[in-house]
C-alpha cells in the first residue's frame, strides 16, 4: 500500500505551521528526527504519538491529527526533552503551542471539568495540583 505524502504543505497546513512556530518560538525544521526527546520522555507510555512524532507532524502541518491526539495532553512540560535535544529544539514549547491552538478556539474544548471530579478527590488535592491542572488543561 502506498501513502501519498505532500512535501509542500497546502495553504491551511502552512497556516498551522506558522501558528505553531509563532506560539512556540521554534523553527520546526531544525528537528532532524533523532528521537532523543522521545527516548527520555516520562510520559511516553501514555502517548499514542511520541514527542519526535509530534514534531514531525507539526513540520508537515498535520494540525488536525495533532489537535485530536491524546499525547499533547499527556505531556506535563517536565522539560526533559528540551534539555536533551541536540538541535536545541524546545519540544515542550511546541507541544504547548499545539495545546494553545486547541484551547484558543471558541469551542471551549477543555480537558478537565473540575466540578465533575469526585468530591472526595477534590477535597484531598492540594491547590498546587488543581491550579496547575487548570492552567494546562482548560481555556
Amino acid at each position, binding site marked *: 500500500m502506498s501513502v501519498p505524502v505532500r512535501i509542500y504543505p497546502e495553504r491551511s497546513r502552512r497556516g498551522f505551521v506558522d501558528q505553531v512556530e*509563532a*506560539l*512556540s*518560538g521554534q523553527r520546526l525544521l531544525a528537528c532532524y528526527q533523532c528521537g532523543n526527546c522521545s527516548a527520555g520522555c*516520562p*510520559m511516553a*507510555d*501514555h502517548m499514542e504519538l511520541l514527542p519526535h512524532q509530534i514534531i514531525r507532524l507539526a513540520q508537515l502541518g498535520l494540525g488536525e491529527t495533532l489537535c485530536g491526539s491524546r499525547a499533547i495532553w*499527556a505531556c*506535563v*512540560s*517536565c*522539560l*526533559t526533552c*528540551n*534539555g536533551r535535544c541536540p538541535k536545541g529544539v*524546545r519540544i*515542550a*514549547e511546541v507541544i*504547548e*503551542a499545539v495545546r*494553545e491552538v486547541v484551547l484558543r478556539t471558541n469551542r471551549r474544548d477543555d*480537558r*478537565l471539568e*473540575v466540578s465533575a*471530579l469526585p468530591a472526595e*478527590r477534590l477535597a*484531598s*488535592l*492540594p*491547590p*498546587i*495540583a*488543581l*491550579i*496547575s*491542572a487548570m*492552567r*494546562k*488543561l482548560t481555556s
Partner: protein
Amino acid sequence: MRISYFPGCTLKNHAVNFDDSTIAACTRLGLEVKELDRWNCCGTVHGLAADDLIHRMAPITNLIRAKEAGADAFMTGCAMCYSTLKRANLHLRQNPEALSVVNGFLSLEQTDYRGDLDVLHLLELLRDRIGFEQLAARVERPLSGLRVACYYGCLLVRPREAAIDDSEQPRVMEDLMAALGATPVAFPLKTECCGAYQVVADPGIIAERTRRIMGSAASHGADLVVMSCPLCAYNLDDRQADARRLDPDLAPLPVFYFTQLMALALGCGEEVLRLERHRTDPRAPLTARGLL
C-alpha cells in the same frame, strides 16, 4: 541581607510542615526571613507560549511587593513557585518590551518593576550565601546513619537557565544532607518527573510514576526521600498507596521536605516538623536512628 520569603499557597494548607520547618530552620541559622506582605499565588506554571504575557503578571506583582518591602533578595522553598517566579523574572529581564507592557498593565501599582530583584531558591541561598561548612558547624543533632534519597523532580533543575544545579546530575541536596550528618544514597531517578498535575485528571499515571520513582529509591537502600515540591510530595507520599496496588512489594517509604531534616538536625523541637501531616508513617526511620 533582607530576605523576603514567599511561602506559596500550598505551604499554607497541605504543606504546613514545609512552611513551619522552613521558618524554624532559617531562624536557627540566624537568617532574617520575613514573609512577604500581601503575596498572591504565583500561578504555579510558567506559560510556554511566546505571547503569554498575562501569566507573568501574578509572579511580577509578588516581586513588586518584595521591592516595596525593601528586600535584597526574594526567596522561596517550593520548587514550582521558584520556577514560575524565576522564569517570569528572567523573561522580563531579557525582554524590555515585555517588561514595559507588564508595567503598563500593572499601572495601578505604586511601584514599577525593573527586573532588578534576584529570585532565589532556599537551597541556593544555603549553598551560596551561607555555605554548607558553616551550616555543618551549627548542627546539634547529626542525622547519623540516616540514608536519604534526594529527589529533585523537574523544576529545580530544568530549564537550564532557571536551574539551581546541573540538570542531569544535581548534588546540592546531597551536599546539604551530608552537612547535616546524613548519608545520601545513589538515586538514578532523582530528576525523573513524578507526573505533576496529571494526578487531578488521571491518577493512574501517578501510580505508575510513583511506583517507579519510590521503587528506585527503596532499591538503593533509602530510609526516606527528601524533596522541595508539595506537588511531588503529594504524588509520592499521599498517592503511594495507589502505587502499592500496582506493586504490593513496594515498601512504605516516607517523604520529607529537606527543611524538616534541617530543622531536626539544627535542634528544633519536633512540633515544627508537623509529622501528623504525612501519609506514609514518617517516624519509623527517625526513631530507628534515635532522632525522635
